[in-house]
């Protein structure tokens, strides 16, 4: 059973000048936690808005819960939960007022579905009379999630729920999503953070409106065919340029404390050769070791290909 299906969905803005989404097709299974991973401007929000019936696609078809996003928009709006990328609750209303309001417009009450949000709401309860605008970023996200869940949606659309949230709150947020998944709710989530990709069951990597790869995070990493190495030296600034100039490096990208490199030729001699070349260029304390690629490595590789 597929809860969300996209078939060659395209979306353009400014009368066709800007192609935000380009023939995107994928599906989300019932009860699945599906991640849409890509940088800002990749087209994630446009896809979310098309699926939540807020935008009309310029081409292709899509269905949610088996209903067409254009024709059956009223039915879809009753059954899905949507959390937009920007904090979109009433800042001048209190936590409780926001929650009651959203329960009411979905013809339900907080009491009726309290069990679903209980775990999350318990953390908000001490601040229930505080205005939503005065909450911390993490608390705002929890409240927004509560409001999106209060009518027990079949599918939850979360557009960049963890953007602008601290590391601890982000971790908590993903824990909450796992628990919601256990309740049988299908979740489509987008994020620009590559490290969050592995927390999803399946992911789609998206760039410039096109899907580059759809699979489980493990399989996507498994498809990374080359050996990947991490390189470090005392002078990281010039190291990147020197690596590129060696002539034996295929790709080279800065990743925090290390540079990740792949060789044009995958054999053991290349490592020693690289160290030699770098030593000639006056690099000291050179460190070179093989590593397993991350989703980010895969993303960059797919982009370069």
């Amino acid at each position, binding site marked *: 059973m597929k809860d969300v299906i996209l078939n060659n969905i395209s979306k353009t803005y400014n009368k066709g000048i800007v192609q935000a989404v380009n023939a995107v097709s994928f599906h989300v299974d019932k009860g699945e936690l599906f991640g849409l991973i890509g940088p800002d401007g990749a087209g994630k929000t446009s896809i979310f*808005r098309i699926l*939540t*019936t*807020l*935008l*009309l696609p310029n081409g292709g078809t899509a269905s949610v819960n088996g209903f067409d996003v254009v024709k059956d*928009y*009223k039915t879809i*709006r*009753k059954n*899905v939960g*949507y*959390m*937009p990328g*920007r*904090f*979109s*609750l*009433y*800042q*001048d*209303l209190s936590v409780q*007022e926001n929650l*009651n*309001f*959203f329960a*009411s*417009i*979905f*013809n339900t009450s907080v009491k009726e579905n309290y069990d679903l949000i209980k775990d999350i709401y318990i953390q908000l309860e001490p601040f229930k009379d505080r205005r939503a605008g005065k909450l911390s970023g993490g608390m705002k996200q929890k409240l927004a999630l509560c*409001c*999106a869940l209060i009518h027990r949606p079949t599918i939850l659309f979360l557009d960049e729920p963890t953007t602008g949230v601290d590391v601890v709150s982000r971790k908590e947020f993903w824990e909450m999503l796992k628990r919601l998944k256990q309740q049988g709710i299908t979740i489509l989530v987008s994020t620009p953070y590559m490290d969050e990709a592995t927390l999803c069951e399946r992911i789609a990597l998206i760039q410039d409106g096109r899907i580059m790869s759809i699979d489980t995070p493990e399989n996507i990493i498994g498809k990374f065919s080359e050996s990947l190495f991490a390189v470090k030296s005392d002078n990281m600034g010039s190291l990147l340029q020197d690596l590129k100039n060696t002539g034996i490096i295929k790709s080279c990208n800065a990743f925090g404390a290390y540079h990740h490199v792949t060789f044009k030729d995958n054999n053991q001699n290349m490592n020693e050769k690289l160290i030699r070349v770098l030593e000639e260029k006056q690099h000291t304390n050179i460190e070179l070791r093989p590593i397993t690629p991350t989703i980010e490595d895969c993303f960059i590789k797919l982009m370069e290909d």
Partner: protein
Amino acid sequence: MMDNISTFIKKEFLHVFRDRKTLLMLFGLPIVQIILFGFALTNEITNAKIVVCDYAKDDASQQIIGKLQASQQFDIQRILLNHKQIETAFKDGEIKMAVVFPANFNSDLLHQHKAQVQLITDASDPNTATAISGYANQIVMDYQNELMQLQRVPYQINTEVRMLYNPELKAAVNFVPGVMSLILLLVCVLMTSVAIVKEKETGTMEVLLVSPFSPFLIIVSKAMPYLALSLINLTIILLLSVLVLGMPINGSILLLYAVSTLFIITALSLGLLISNRTASQQSAMLISLMGMLVPSILFTGFMFPLENMPYPLQLVSHIIPAKWYYIIVKSVMVKGLGFSAIWKETLVLLTMTMLLLVVNIKTFKIRLT
């Protein structure tokens, strides 16, 4: 359904009450305007320059002239000998009023118990003209009462007031109807459109649209508090004008509220139309102010008489809802007329409202653009 509409409306009231600045504007503005128009612009009359033309030159006329001279409101410039000099004095713009005593003023009073004084004012500034003739009238009445008490004879001095240049006193105390139409317009068009566009701007509209709540009901619910607040505002304006400015409501109050409600709905529909076509609070505000408020001030007829405008501009004034409302309020409030006198204007307003509502429903956006 009713239940969630009421929650929605309750939420809108919370927005209004928690936004102190808007609230201040909402209720401060009508009060300030009424007070400003009422006092600063009308009652500031001291030492108004007048001339006297005394054909009688008897005891009674001299005593009244003495009283005029003694009052703070008047400053007698000259005693004229001839009626014809009055007009020149007015044209020179140096005087505000001329008081004319006919020959035999005192003897008429003593023998027929009845006499006349003529007050001629420059009504091109109608507010001042009314106020000045009112003061002069009071002074004459004072004298009449003193005389009556002294001699126990029912003397009667009639003042005949002539308004020069603007006999109908257009745009006189009519500022109350004018302020009413402007305030209602301001609150309904500006605040409603801004309130709705704010939901778009902060992204809450996005969440509201992805709900079973009908998009059109969202808009209606958002407009409801402003209907209620406008009626409260109307009451404040009416109370102020009756209690503070002493301007009575001559016609039916019920009729006044009924047509005002219609006008409020017209203005709300205009606000919705603006909010439907704008994406930011700033542009909504700008369009409301420049596109609605300024034309309304110009073409309603209470600041600038429409009769004096070139014909094309008079045609423009026909499409301004405030103009029709202003005529209705003047008829009901000032002239005390009933529905039979205003049905045409009411019909025009009703047609405009219907038209706006139809356009609103037809062009209403159920998605983001």
